[in-house]
């Protein structure tokens, strides 16, 4: 990785945008999206880290990204369900 790697720049940018969004936005949906931006930045950084070995990519960061994506998807789904519930305060029952 000599010079400025565009992917590294993108990863840092995604994390920075996400953190900025989390601090500035009030609406939970925007905050959830901001968190997903941070997450994608971190995952991109991990993929970059996997590239650093001379002989082929390092499998460990790849495994971390895959696990991380699974966790991010389920946590985002849970967050969306909560946001939907919050938007319908009259509904206190089951779904």
């Amino acid at each position, binding site marked *: 990785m000599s010079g400025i790697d565009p992917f590294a720049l993108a990863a840092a940018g995604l994390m920075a945008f996400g953190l900025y969004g989390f601090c500035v936005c009030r609406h939970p949906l925007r905050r959830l999206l901001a968190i997903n931006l941070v997450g994608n930045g*971190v995952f991109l950084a991990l993929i970059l880290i996997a590239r650093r070995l001379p002989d082929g990519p390092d499998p460990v960061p790849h495994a971390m990204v895959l696990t991380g994506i699974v966790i991010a998807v389920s946590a985002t789904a849970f*967050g969306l369900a909560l946001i939907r519930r*919050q938007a319908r305060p009259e509904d206190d029952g089951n779904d």
Partner: protein
Amino acid sequence: MTEALPVLLVFVPFLAGLGQFVLGRAVPWSQQFVSGFNLLLVLLLLRAVAGGEPVIADLGGWGEPLAIHLQADGLATLMLLLTAVLAVAISLYAIPAFGGHARSAWQFWTLWPLLLGSLNALFLSRDLFNIYVTLELVTLAAIPLVLLAGPRKTVDAALRYLLFALLGSLIYLAGVALLYAQAGTLDLALLPAATPTGSLAGPLAAALIITGILIKGAILPFHIWLPAAHGGAPAAVSAILSALVVKAAIYLLLRLWTGALEPLVSIAAGQLLGLLGASAVLFGSWQAFRQSRLKLVVAYSTVAQLGYMLLFFPMAVTAAWQGAVYHGLAHGVAKAALFLAAGNLLYYLGQDRLEALRGIDRPLAVSLLAFGLAGVSIMGLPPSGGFTAKWLLLTASLQTGQWWWTAALVAGGLLAAGYIFRVLRLAFLQSAEPAERRDGPVPGRLMAWTATALALLAIGLGLISAPLLDLLGDIPGGGS
């Protein structure tokens, strides 16, 4: 045989929770077996670890770079013991507490074993990424539990908790990625030797990891999600969250600081963490004193009490190490007792405004006894566990010549006495008319006495500290 114990500690609760989910209805007694079996496993583990050697389970028999190890040393075993003891008490308490509501009971008896298994896995993890996964499991099992108090009341608190928890774990993961890029390993035992020092990336990685954990642990600037979530959840859940879930984050901080991150941390960072801790003690206690609802008093008290554990970092001597960990144990037991007792008052009154507590001492004498006894440990009066912990921290602050932490300890204790006695004063105040407003039923013996048993244990921790501190041992890596 002993290598199987860590594995069973993770898988038995997970299987129980999944089985409960598949079954589709609540079977409270089966969970009593699980928490009892869990305690038995931890006691067997305790016997194995007491020899001084950690128990290590090598999952799948893989070699060093790919291996996933589960490891139980003194610190992990103590946390497992705290979790197991509280699990037995809280599971018993939850039988009547969730008795009448079929759906929320099923949800509770599904999520609670999953949370127990996740906590066990977190304490037993030995690599940074496994810790990330278990942290997320803990979060995703804990937040739905908050919602059991009724979605209408708690959805805001749960959502805020989730957003902060997710942000915290991603910041943690960013730190882990940065650290892996330099060290090429995630194993806690291999990291200190593999981490190159001198570059800027190492301390940055450590800072990210620590910041992520601080968000998860609700330490002062990041505490804002805690009071609403812990105050709004059902009592049994509040006890689990306050006594165990946030404690798990602080446990992680203690473990990483003295192990994997040891080459990267500086004295200045330790002082900064101590400052955050001391501010949390003062701010949290003050806020607890100002609240008008009982469960918020107890929740803000958690913000304060977690701060004491951070006082280890600036001092870093044996007494501070033992004091911080012992404070974790004592606060865990006492806070669980406080929340269960507060839950009993809420159960009877149908609300928890402090003003409504007047004259409640006659119908709810046992629960108030529990509240008072647990309060003794929170204030740090002898002979309670809280006293032992604070005494060790005081000794450490005088040993290291950092007297200003003593001031925070003393002020925190006084403020704690203030908010505990404020509640007790109202409860024992004899109003003109006798307490006739029976909005709810009197909590049964099981609910009253589990809270009292935990409160008595919080006092008793002051008397049985020697074997527990022996098990904990000195700071890993020697310390100063």
